[in-house]
């Protein structure tokens, strides 16, 4: 009996990690640009592009890591496009985001058709191999969570630490903060505001690509149309929930992953499927209700 419960909890925790990883990457991506005063509304589309090109790169070269590199490259290009539109050409961030998300969705389907002659799913490609820790396997709970660890999870945890140091312990992080909070003041201090914003949006693209690539070449090893399904927006909500702080992103991502994993476990006991599929989005709205109110970077002046 005890063993069964342990097993249930173990698979719950393993599920948590699977949901947590891409969402937290998205949350880091969002907080990176938000701190510099740009709301990366195109996050969803950038993740989708990253997911597609990671699979495409792996398909071309046979190496998942080269695929990841291509995914990052493509995502940074799209992020650069978003930066150019919003920073240089002063396009409304919501409109630019909407356009790029739509573009990414359509473009990936057209490319699916061009490469694999289908509009649904790509061929199965080589994925990033899990790191096996056999020593952990016999340990309850921890074994379920980490006996097969994705390298991207390790990258995620390392980047959380790096991002924390970058945000709060470096001159660059401080400049970023000033840029986001008061661009005019930053400019008067001699900070190159536009350049800092460009850089942050591009770094945001790197993290978005990692999140997208986790979905495609880590989780299932195929690309399917519209596979990001709003996770970019959920990531934005998580970073907002966590006040654009890496620890906040971590906790928000864990909370989100745990609740969603719990819902998947509920699927067997008669709750309609649609209700369970709806939950992440409802949860996001609830999280937004409880997040800090004065998140000026993500608020528009209009209303």
């Amino acid at each position, binding site marked *: 009996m005890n063993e069964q419960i342990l097993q249930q909890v173990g698979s719950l925790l393993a599920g948590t990690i699977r949901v947590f990883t891409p969402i937290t990457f998205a949350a880091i991506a969002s907080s990176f640009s938000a701190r510099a005063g740009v709301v990366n509304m195109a996050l969803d589309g950038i993740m989708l592009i990253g997911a597609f090109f990671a699979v495409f790169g792996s398909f071309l070269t046979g190496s998942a890591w080269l695929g990841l590199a291509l995914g990052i490259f493509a995502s940074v290009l799209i992020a650069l496009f978003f930066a150019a*539109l919003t920073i240089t050409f*002063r*396009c409304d961030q919501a409109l630019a985001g909407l356009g790029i998300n*739509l573009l990414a969705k359509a473009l990936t389907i057209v490319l699916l058709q*061009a490469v694999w002659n289908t509009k649904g799913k790509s061929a199965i490609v080589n994925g990033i191999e899990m790191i096996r820790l056999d020593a952990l396997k016999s340990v309850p709970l921890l074994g379920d969570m980490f006996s097969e660890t994705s390298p991207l999870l390790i990258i995620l945890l390392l980047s959380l630490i790096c991002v924390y140091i970058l945000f709060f312990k470096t001159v660059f992080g401080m400049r970023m903060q000033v840029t986001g909070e008061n661009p005019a003041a930053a400019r008067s201090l001699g900070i190159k505001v536009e350049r800092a914003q460009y850089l942050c949006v591009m770094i945001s693209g790197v993290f978005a690509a990692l999140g997208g690539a986790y979905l495609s070449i880590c989780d299932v090893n195929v690309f399917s149309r519209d596979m990001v399904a709003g996770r970019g927006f959920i990531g934005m909500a998580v970073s907002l929930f966590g006040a654009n702080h890496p620890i906040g992103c971590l906790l928000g991502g864990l909370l989100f992953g745990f609740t969603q994993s719990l819902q998947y476990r509920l699927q067997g006991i008669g709750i309609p499927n649609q209700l369970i599929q*709806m939950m992440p989005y409802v949860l996001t709205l609830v999280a937004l209700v409880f997040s800090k109110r004065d998140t000026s970077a993500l608020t528009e002046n209009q209303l």
Partner: protein
Amino acid sequence: MRTALPRGGGAILLWIAKGGALFSAAAFALSLVVAAIIMLLAGFDPLEGYHALLIGSFGSWDNFATALGTATPLCFAGLSVSIGKRAGFFNIGVEGQLLSGALTAAIAGAYAPGLPAILHVPLCFGAAWIVGGLIGVLSVKLKQFMKVSELIITVMLNYVVAYTVELLVAEFFLNSAYVVRTPDIAGAARLAALIPFSRLTTGVFFAIAGIALLWWIYEKTRFGYEITAIGLNRRAAETGGINVNRGVGLAMFISGGLAALGGAVETMGVHGYYVANMVNGYGYDGLTIAIMGGGNPIGCALASIIFGALRAGSSNMNRTTSIPGEFISILQALVILFVSTPLLIRYFQAKLKKRPPTTPATPATPTTPAEAV
């Protein structure tokens, strides 16, 4: 284009005279070129695609009727975004509101038998309007409460509405085991086809009525003046004694209602029941249409005909070529990006005119994009 139009009867003429229509046309042309380049890079023949699009939309009277019939719900979606935008709320929830309207009309149409058409059609429309309008109001209230961009809220809300609709159909109104659809609506609730077996129904007259309604609101009513003021400068409107929350709320009730009518027209005219995926992407077309139409009801009508034609043409393109229909979504995304980035178009204009190289290509000082129009 974010500039709202000046008041007065000549606003539409002014929009055209000030180059608003020309600007939209230029952005559309630029999108056609860039989309063609993308298709070339992906290994498809864009000329073949454009040819199939043209044949599929204007090749015959039947095809043209399909284009106009498809333009009908799109026009509602465009008008819906337009009035929201006028009040400063970017309604990306149109997709969900359309969907809710389609289902509500299907339920009201099927479960109130025996009513004469003169009562049944307004019942379906009214029910759809209320449900869609309330979703619109909900998104405003959520935004006012959370103080977060409406983009996140409405995108999340769209998923919630879509799954709720799916759930309601599957649990309560399922009619067939093979297709996810509701029962047939009563004959009295059907909108007659203008050309037999085409998508063009009497719904098109309701769309025209919708255009007239928005024109009337914008030009002739105090409410229209108030929401225009709110959209232009919320604080100034507030200082001027306008009840901002009420204005935006009411505008979004109309916005959501109009979107829902788009769904209702599709249910009552084209299908005769609600079926899964029937309004797939209409909401996003509506956003593009409103942006292209420059916040102007007549502009919206023209843009919706273009997008109706593109959709009608894309099914022909799907049939006759290997180019996927998503090609038009690429086009649409580019239209959104180019129309909403006036500085980019001006940059291209400057390049074309071959200005002396001393002029900075990109503005170093912040200029308001609104100036461009």
